[in-house]
Structure formats: C-alpha cells, structure tokens
C-alpha cells in the first residue's frame, strides 16, 4: 500500500465514488417504481404471474457483463453509454423485486383486506394504505439484496468503460498498482455496508411495527 497516493488522487477517487453511487442507486429507484405495479399485476392475475415470475427468473440468470454488452443491440445505445449499465441493473432489480412484491401482497391476511373493505376503503386506497404498507418489510429485504449486489456489479461495467469505482480496478491493473485496486474494493464494500444500514433504518421508519420483532 502506498498511502499517500490516496490524498494526492482525491478528485479521481471521489469522482469514481460519485459515479458509482449514481450508477447503483438510480437502477434501484427505477426498479422499485416498476416492481410495485408489476408485482400487483402478478398477484392479481394468475396469467400475469405465470408470465412475469419465470421471465424474471430467466433475466436474473443472465450474467451482468453479457447484459451490459447486449443492451446496445436492444436499445440502440452506444456501447460506452452509461444508460446500458443503468438499464441492466434496473432490470435485475425489477426481476428480484417483482417476485418479492407479488409474494408479499399474497401474504397479506385475507381478514385484514376484508376489515379494510368493511371500514370503507375502496380498492385503490386499500392497496396504498393497507396492503402496500404491510408488504414493506419484504420489500425492504428485496431492496437490500438488490442494492448490495448492484453496488458490487457496477464495477464490472469498467470492462466496457463505465464502472464508477471499477475504473480504479482496470486502471490499477493496467498500471500494475495494487493500492488503487484496494482503495476501490474497500470503498465499494463501505458503500454497500452504508446503503444496507440506511435501508434497514428506512424500513424501521416505514414499518414501525417490525421494530419489536427484529
């Protein structure tokens, strides 16, 4: 380790870190926003479930590097476009969450739905005010997995020129400079730990009744 490399290259490191945060957080937001309606569909209509859940499984199996490279063919983007990485990771997040949302909605007790209906909740409000909040703990669990694995996957994008902290890996390899690689790994792990802890905190605020249980 050459420690004084770190302060001397602060702009490079912080730039890579900032890019990493955007490239891993944006897909989680997009995936979450799309997963809620699709998860609702999968839970509501058996035909949608029979289509969406296996499709999500297949997409989840495709290695990230392959998806990064194939998306330009599908989207018509340039190979170096960061959109490829964002879309690929959003698709993975969606594939993971759509199942979690569908399962969580299916697990809402029938009696709760009936009580809400009896209290005068119409289906749209019942979904937003009763069913979705009850799905929060499962949703948070899915979000944690998606976020942590996105943070680790973004760096693979460095192989196609878009990779946040991954640039420190490829740059360190080309210059035969382990310090740079170690800095990238450590920051990537710290970022994942921080994101995970924030999501746990967020989950406790959004679903206060789980505080006692966990």
């Amino acid at each position, binding site marked *: 380790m050459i420690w004084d490399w770190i302060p001397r290259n602060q702009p490079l490191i912080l730039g890579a870190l900032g890019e990493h945060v955007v490239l891993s957080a944006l897909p989680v937001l997009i995936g979450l926003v799309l997963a809620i309606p699709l998860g609702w569909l999968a839970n509501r209509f058996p035909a949608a479930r029979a289509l969406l859940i296996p499709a999500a499984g297949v997409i*989840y199996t495709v290695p990230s590097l392959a998806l990064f*490279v194939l998306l330009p063919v599908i989207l018509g983007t340039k190979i170096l476009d960061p959109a490829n990485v964002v879309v690929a990771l959003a698709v993975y997040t969606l594939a993971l969450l759509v199942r979690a949302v569908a399962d969580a909605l299916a697990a809402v007790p029938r009696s709760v739905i009936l009580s809400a209906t009896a209290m005068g909740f119409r289906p749209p409000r019942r979904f937003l005010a009763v069913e979705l909040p009850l799905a929060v703990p499962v949703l948070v669990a899915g979000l944690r997995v998606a976020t942590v694995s996105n943070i*680790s996957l973004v760096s693979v994008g460095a*192989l196609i020129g878009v990779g946040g902290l991954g640039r420190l890996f*490829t740059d*360190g*390899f080309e210059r035969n400079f*382990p310090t740079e690689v170690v800095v990238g790994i450590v920051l990537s792990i710290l970022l994942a730990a921080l994101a995970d802890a924030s999501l746990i905190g967020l989950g406790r605020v959004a679903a206060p009744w789980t505080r006692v249980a966990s």
Partner: protein
Amino acid sequence: MDSGGVMNLFSWFADPAHWTGPGGIPTRVAEHLSYSGLALLIGVVIAIPVGALIGHTGRGGFLVVGLANALRALPDLGLLILLVLLIGINLVSVQLALLVLAIPPLLAGTYSGVRNVDPAVVDAARGVGMREHQVLLAVELPIALPLVLGGLRTAALQVVATTAIAAYVSYGGLGRYLIDGQREHDYTQMAAGAVLIAVLALVVEGLLASVQRLLGLRTAGNRAKLGGRSRSEFVGVRS
C-alpha cells in the same frame, strides 16, 4: 432494435471459422467450463463438509451467515485483479477468485439444510442407535439435499458468470470474445461473446434446476417444508 447489428451477429455465428481452432467456440466453451468446473469441485470439497459439520453441531452458524452476506458486497472484478497483481496470472489466482464466490452459497446452503432438519428426526435416528457420523451422513445430509443443491446452483451461476470476467486478466474462456472484441473495436464479436455467455449460464441453470426437481420428487415432504425457503434465501447472490 438495430437490425444491422443483429444481422452481423447472425453472420458471425454462421461463419465456420468461428467454430474451429484454438479461438473457436467449442474450445472457448470447454475452457470456460473447465475453469468453472474446477472451482466448483474444489468449492464442494471444502464447503459441504464444513457446512454440514457446522449445521450438525450448531456451532459457528453466525459465521456462515455473516460470511455469506459480507461476500455479496465484494466486487468480483476488483478481487480478481487484486489477486492477479499480488500472485500473478496463473491458475491459482483465478481459481482463488472463483472459490471466494463459490464457497459462501455452498456453505450457506449446506449449513441451513442440515440445520433445518426436524430435531425429532435427528432424535429418532439417535434413538435407533445411529452414531453421530451416521446421523449426519445417512439422515441429515440426504434431507438437506434440496438446499445443498440450491447452494450449488447459486454457486455455479456465480462462478460461470465470473469466469467470463477472467478473460480481462488474459485468461481464456468465453470472456475472450468480449475483451478481444473491445480491443479490436469489433462490436459484433463482443455481442456474440455476450450471447454465448448468457446461453451457457441459462443452460447450466436449467440443468441444475432439473436435477433439483428430479431429486425433489424423491424428497417431496421435505421440499414442501423447505423448497420455498431455499429460493428466497439464495436468489440474492448473483454476478
């Protein structure tokens, strides 16, 4: 969709030159599978006995769970590059990087499989006079099989995906098409490599899923209790 790109992709696969010789598809697939297979084999030999022992004794379980979670955050590419810079480009560095990915899901699958065996069954096995190693080998491990296989499935996917990255450190396998294509600005070659990697991952996943299903039929009661759990528990690890 850019139809020119798709047409180029078709003609790339139709070119007989891409199907023979040291850079041909069969050779690259064989290389890819041999690196991945070796790592999985070593992973199985290490992780299954350790996971079974931890599950059987119940000691050190928190280590398994902690390790599996912590390693999920480790960036594969960074780990591989660091190992290559430290010990050079050889079988050891690449296998070590793949092993770090293969072991946690295998360990977690075996551990939770053995741990979740109904204690009444274990007591009954002891009651009919089985010794501890017989309880583990003849009762707990067979019941744990679906979860062990779940772990193997996750590990195999992870390893097959990461073997593609190994081409960056001048290793063989299907990743070569991506890295060489990138260097030669030959996007068609890169896309062909990506298709091959995706197909290989899907085939491996499909095969292991069928094995799991076949064995699951034999342990149907067990599957009803643990099957749902194995998916949600391991779906998170990917590469």
